[in-house]
């Protein structure tokens, strides 16, 4: 009957881990006002997480826009609805692909760098040294990085969607030869600012919180060895991606349910 005990231990471990996550999140939120007294740290983190991710986000957005335009054109042309390519690409990007793909890329690029940085700080005993000096590492190191991630994500998602639409314009109008007036006017009349764009922004903020929190938590709780840091880095990517995709389903079901 060993396996029953093992099952019980497994379930209790999950519960304990959830509780630890929640306590950590609460600690992080509690230290936010203190940490924002020195906004230069958060600004530096927005630079590290946002500006330095621009290249990968913009190039991915452009590529996704190209491919979306091509695929939807081939699908819509059979029904004579080729002029709606702009509308379909816009809705796909602004509602879903913008927030989700940006979150996945963010987790891969910025999340891993956050986890590695914090994990190495822990391995080099910098965090313990800070505690000895009565500097709370959560407010000095973790909170600015968390804030930087939450601020950078929505901006990156918007840039992803915008450049995706421009990429779709290049393919649909300049390459395939659709009418530019129709491209923009059908798109404009079919996309609702509050429902589509607004919900997309809400999603990207939620995903920003998820990715930043998971990255910061995994870094802080990493085992203080090189192997521990490496494992924490991969865990960040996996957990962020899975959580983002699950939350995407929940949010989409809440926001875009049939009226």
């Amino acid at each position, binding site marked *: 009957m060993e396996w029953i005990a093992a099952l019980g231990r497994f379930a209790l471990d999950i519960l304990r881990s959830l509780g630890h996550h929640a306590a950590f999140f609460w600690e992080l939120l509690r230290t936010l006002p203190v940490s924002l007294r020195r906004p*230069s740290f958060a*600004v*530096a983190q*927005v*630079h590290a997480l*946002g*500006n330095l991710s*621009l290249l990968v986000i913009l190039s991915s957005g452009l590529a996704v826009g190209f491919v979306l335009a091509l695929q939807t054109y081939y699908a819509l042309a059979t029904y004579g609805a080729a002029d709606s390519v702009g509308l379909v690409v*816009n809705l796909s990007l*602004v509602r879903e692909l913008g927030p989700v793909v940006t979150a996945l890329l963010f987790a891969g690029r910025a999340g891993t760098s956050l986890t590695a940085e914090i994990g190495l700080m822990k391995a080099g005993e910098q965090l313990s040294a800070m505690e000895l000096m009565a500097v709370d590492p959560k407010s000095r190191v973790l909170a600015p990085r968390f804030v930087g991630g939450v601020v*950078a994500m*929505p*901006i*990156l998602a*918007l*840039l992803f*969607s*915008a*450049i995706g*639409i421009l990429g779709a314009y290049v393919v649909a109008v300049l390459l395939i030869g659709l009418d530019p007036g129709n491209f*923009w006017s059908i*798109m*404009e*009349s*079919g*996309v*609702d*600012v509050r429902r*589509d*764009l607004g919900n997309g*922004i809400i999603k990207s903020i939620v995903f920003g919180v998820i990715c930043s929190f998971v990255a910061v938590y995994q870094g802080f709780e990493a085992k203080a060895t090189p192997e521990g840091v490496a494992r924490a880095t991969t865990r960040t990517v996996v957990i962020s991606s899975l959580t983002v995709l699950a939350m995407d389903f929940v949010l989409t079901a809440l926001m875009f349910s049939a*009226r």
Partner: protein
Amino acid sequence: MSKRGTEILVGLFVLLGIAALVFLALRAANLSSFNGADTYTLTAKFDNIGGLKVRSPVRSAGVVVGRVTSIALDPKSYQGVAKLDIEKSVQFPTDSSARILTSGLLGDQYIGLEAGGDEKMFAPGDTIKSTQSAVVLESLISQFLFNKAADAGGPSAPAAANAPPAPSGAKK
């Protein structure tokens, strides 16, 4: 990287994000069109509102002059009651009519307002009296079939009544 340099770059990053938001909201969504700043409300009752939805456009001569803000059922008269928000810059005479039309063959439905000739204009909160309901496809089809059946059976019925003992003449 110096602190000032970092701050400038972050400022540029945020500015880029705001530009993307403005682009998406204005050029790629329906924000720039009718935004409902100065409007007045009119009510219209229909026997059948068909596929009309909240936020459907209200057009006059094809130009969007307003939006449908709410659709409800009147529990006493069992009619559909639609509230319309019309731009303040457009006033309609009190004998204007509202019809539910379809854009294209199978497109979205909207309310078409046809201006009447009265000198008095609608006041905010008035009810449009002359309305025409949406065309329901099933009723059209059944009406068409009924007409067809009536056409086929009609001419032979009076002939059979006039000359029942002459079977050869009544055959069609």
